[in-house]
């Protein structure tokens, strides 16, 4: 959390219809108010990007030599940012499969409607197949993980929206 984050927060506040805002976070407290506009409840959608502020971002050099790393990081970060999206995360590190067998249809496609508990993919770890169940009722809006590639623990596999 640094002053740039505070500025961004204030800009948001300024641009919003909010009349009052108070936030306590990572040792920082801020509250502000203004006249005019209607009351809106503010929810903090930016924890992730904020906490990343004090982390060393990969430099240009790093970007070139470790593209995989950079990509993975960015992917994870950018998706964690948007709290309104529902996430399906890998419960274990292993190989991700979108279908039960290579010659079969994927469990889900973008646009599919799923019910909580529906199998949306599988992760093979230590020679065991683990079914991945949808943790929500909703529509799959994007599939982030690649078929037959290793996914990290906690990596976002798919995003969805509730209906």
């Amino acid at each position: 959390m640094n002053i740039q984050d505070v500025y961004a927060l204030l800009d948001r506040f300024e641009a919003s219809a909010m009349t009052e805002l108070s936030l306590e976070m990572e040792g920082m407290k801020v509250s502000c108010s203004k006249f005019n506009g209607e009351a809106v409840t503010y929810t903090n959608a930016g924890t992730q990007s904020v906490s990343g502020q004090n982390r060393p971002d990969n430099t240009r050099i790093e970007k070139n030599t470790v593209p995989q790393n950079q990509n993975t990081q960015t992917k994870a970060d950018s998706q964690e940012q948007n709290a309104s999206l529902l996430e399906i995360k890998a419960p274990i590190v292993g190989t991700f499969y979108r279908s039960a067998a290579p010659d079969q249809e994927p469990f889900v496609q973008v646009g599919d409607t799923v019910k909580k508990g529906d199998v949306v993919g599988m992760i093979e770890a230590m020679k065991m197949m683990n079914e991945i169940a949808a943790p929500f009722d909703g529509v799959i809006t994007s599939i982030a993980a690649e078929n037959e590639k290793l996914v990290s623990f906690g990596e976002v596999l798919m995003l969805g929206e509730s209906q």
Partner: protein
Amino acid sequence: MFKRILIANRGEIAMRLIRCCREMEIDTVLAYSEADKDSLPVQFATYPVCIGPAKASESYLQQDLLIDVARKMECEAIHPGYGFLSENADFAEKCEQNGIIFIGPSADIIRKMGNKQAARTLMKQNQVPVAPGSDGAVQTLAEAEAVADKIGYPVLVKAAAGGGGRGMRKAFSKEELKSAYETAKAEALSAFGDDEMYLEKLILKPHHIEFQILGDSFGNIIHLGERDCSIQRRNQKMMEESPSKVLSSELRKEMGEAAVRAAKAAGYYSAGTVEFVLDQEKHFYFIEMNTRIQVEHPVTEMVSNVDLVKEQIRVAAGLRLNATQADIVLTGHAIECRINAESPERGFAPTPGTIEFLHLPGGNGVRIETAMYQGYTISPYYDSMVAKIIVHAESRLDAIRKMRVALEEVMVQGIDNNAFFQYLILYHPDYIRGNYDTSFLEEHMGELLEWHKAGVKGER
């Protein structure tokens, strides 16, 4: 040479391994826990893979998972670092079974050196001095008493499977032996499921002297001199140096040869350490062999100019040692201080938290091993050691002075640390004179903590 290896560790040693691999043009897969996602090694590894939650038992200690990730990521070898799975024979065996090279000695060797009583017997057979004690396991209290009468008190009752001080008790008299024997045996049974016990003469106020060993799979074994690790708090090393001030060159030669004999007896290869205690009369006794790269390995690297991690990886890849014993020339003096996130004033309690400002020393003859950065949050899940500062100078006194200057520069704001405490040790008259053994910190703790509190600087 390997194309890709998996790093099964974290923190400063993960950085050490990644840097070494990059220099050798080996790709690294870093298996990290969720708690370490913002850590420096994750930024620098070629392929960081999150393998599980913060708890080590669910990530860094997950043997099958690590092997699975190593296979899927097409790693030819796994480097376990120190701690975690580094001396786990079962893990080494699983690696072997899965066609992955465990960077360390074989499961057999780890197992052989893991049973303290068996290792002791092996050493005796190979003319490596061990502390006087029972000739094997003692089955009953009566037997223990007989051995103790023979070798004289004080004695140490030890579990063959023991480690980390558990299943171990001191006895200074026959009266104490009974309860020592019984509690140690019970503790060993509950801790290790194995209550095989043996007896050893208790060496009072010993020096902890260890010899660095390097061996290859062609039977070549060399040593790279000793490290004096007698500055310990509750059996935890805090500061190490090489060479040791208490060894004469004759004794150094004798102990070095004994260390090489010990390693040869075990059929050893890879990097390893033969630990001895040295008593007040300068008799040395084999204690155990550590079958991993150790925290304090840089001390030896500084005086020997040999990259131990590089050699360890080369040997694991089936190459011959680069150097013979005759090639090893030790120059100057090196000291290492372990910087821990802990509060000396609050009983050395760990102090996890966020580093708000960080400045680490640099310059001529100063080496830093760390994974810290400004803004990094030190996790409460793992070891509190956050940095190692190593200095190298011409003489011991020069090294002491250089380390003082280096420690003065350490600024870690946001968390308490032990840099100032270490600094005070460097001003203690007994330390300066080299007049210290493993009892040093215990004996001077009150004094040092008083200085610490007062913020004074010792004898300057």
